[in-house]
């Protein structure tokens, strides 16, 4: 196990480095930020001065060298937009995102597994039909619809649920509720599909044939095997949330990393983009590692 973790850490470090290099050079393809930070009427001298101050005048390789040298001591540089350390900007937002992702994914996982496997137990039954129908709608409806409709119906009528913002626990209800819907629909479908396969598999049939009458025993055994693809998809959805829930953050004024990333990309605030990717990438790598370990836990035959 220790050897596995060591190797994995090394490999991840290399990926992280590759990611940073990739993003550093690719993001520069999107143009010079100078004009975005100066008024339209700014003179050519003012523009030149801005480039000089922000180190945009040097050859790209020199900029890269400087960046890597700073990175070696975990200095991510300053945000052009905010003129404060980029890592501070990112961590402040990431804390919010992490909470939002954790709360949402916990709720989604529990709800989707329970409802999905119940649906799979009676394929084509009423419960299955209803669960399938609504989860599919949830998984394919535009999220801003749900968000705006929730605001104008719920918060305009229920006094203690605010439209948006942060501050009290009530502020979390709508964002979490809206974020819940799509991963819930998707994961429920995967649980259901995977359970159908497993319940139809030979060993479950054998168990039934042998006369294991207790439905719950079959249920638990099947679930254990069905979970393999499910946790993969949970991982994918969690990664999407860690990268930021842009629509929800935008509409609800939630200070997470998704909107920060979009704004930074559109504003060509490269240091923040890189720092944000660095932080979210570490989170995603760790999560993927946990998932891989979970595979082995769920199915001892899997070795690495």
């Amino acid at each position, binding site marked *: 196990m220790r050897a596995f973790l060591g*190797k994995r850490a090394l490999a*991840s470090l290399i*990926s992280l480095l590759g*990611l940073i290099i*990739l*993003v550093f050079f*690719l*993001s520069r*393809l*999107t*143009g010079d930020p100078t004009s975005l930070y100066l008024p339209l009427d700014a003179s050519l001298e003012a523009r030149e001065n801005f480039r000089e101050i922000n180190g945009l005048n040097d050859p790209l390789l020199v900029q890269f060298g400087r960046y890597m040298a700073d990175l070696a001591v975990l200095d991510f540089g300053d945000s052009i937009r905010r003129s404060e350390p980029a890592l501070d900007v990112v961590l402040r937002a990431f804390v919010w995102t992490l909470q939002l992702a954790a709360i949402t994914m916990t709720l989604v996982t529990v709800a989707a597994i329970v409802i999905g496997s119940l649906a799979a137990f009676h*394929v*084509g039954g009423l419960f299955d*039909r209803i669960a*399938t*129908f609504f989860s*599919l709608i949830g*998984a*394919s*409806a*535009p*999220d801003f*619809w749900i968000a*705006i*409709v929730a605001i*104008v119906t719920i918060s305009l009528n229920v006094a203690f649920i605010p439209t948006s913002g942060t501050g009290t626990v009530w502020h979390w209800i709508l964002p979490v509720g809206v974020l819940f819907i799509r991963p819930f*629909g*998707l994961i429920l*479908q*995967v649980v259901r*599909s*995977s359970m*159908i*396969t497993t319940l*139809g598999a030979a060993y479950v049939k054998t168990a039934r044939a042998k006369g294991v009458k207790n439905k719950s025993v079959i249920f638990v055994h099947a679930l254990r095997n069905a979970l*393999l*693809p499910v*946790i*993969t*998809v949970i*991982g*994918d959805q969690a*990664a999407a949330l860690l*990268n*930021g829930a*842009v*629509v929800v953050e935008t509409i609800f004024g939630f200070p997470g990393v998704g909107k920060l*990333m*979009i704004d930074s*990309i559109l504003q060509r605030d490269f240091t923040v*983009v890189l720092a944000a*990717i660095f932080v*979210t*990438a570490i989170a*995603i*790598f760790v999560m*993927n590692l946990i998932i891989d370990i979970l*595979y082995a836990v769920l199915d001892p035959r*899997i070795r*690495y």
Partner: protein
Amino acid sequence: MSQIDSAITTANPIYKPPPAWRTTLGMLWRDKFAFAAACILLVVIFCAIFGPMLFEDVATRQNLRGRNAPPFDLSRGWLFILGGDQLGRPLLARIIVASQNTMAVAAGAVACSLLIGTGLGLIAGYTTKTASQVIMRLADVIMSFPSLLLAVIVLYVLEPSVGNLVIVLAITRIPIYLRTSRAEVLEVRERMFVQAAQVMGASTKRIVARHILPVVAPTLITIATLDFAFVMLAESSLSFLGIGIQPPEITWGLMVSQGRPYLTSAWWLSFWPGLAIILTTLSLNLLSGWMRTALDPSQRWRLEVNKEKAKND
């Protein structure tokens, strides 16, 4: 229909099995939801192929003074049954015309990511540790590369065309198929029948194709059908940010995002294209659910034999 029914139920020794397509249709008819889904998809495909030819002109004719015409009002003609958009163009015609680009982007992106992702996943699950490690770390990189940044880069350097959108969206969706198929392979390859095949000397290619792929496929297909919606909506948010398809080209995603500011004042602008996305996804999913039942020998009975027996099981 009754013909088939009787053909199946009467145990006639000189009975010849009906042609395969009739059996399939019969099974489809038996599942009313799947049947409706198939019909909807046929309509969508028809629109995607012929829509632009038929309605291109009507769909782009603007009328500022008749903007946001409410739905279910036939006084402007049947094309306005779903209402008019923010420039007074008939929404129905626009949805029909937009289906072509929408389907091209969604089907293209989903198919590419499904094929590439699954292929890499099978390799990662069934080869040496080093190759597997490289592929998986690559997936990590793609997973942590913000899709929006990728979109901005590709579409900044290149044109925001259908082809480039497919590339961007396909790349960002590869990891999910890759990780899912690889996880399944890891498990399936340890199963008895695969081990047995191996002992009997079957080639790796054969084991993957005959034994592993069929087990992995249902989950992948479920994800792929739902990804259809995901890709259409992702395309919508790219349009919203100005790096997706731009007018005068139209997609459902673009219509949804253009209708967004009107959600509280003229809901129909984004509702109908959104509904089109939902219906298409729903149909795809129901049909794929039906297909797996129909194709899976151990499940097929649900659609073939009479209902009484199915209930008693």
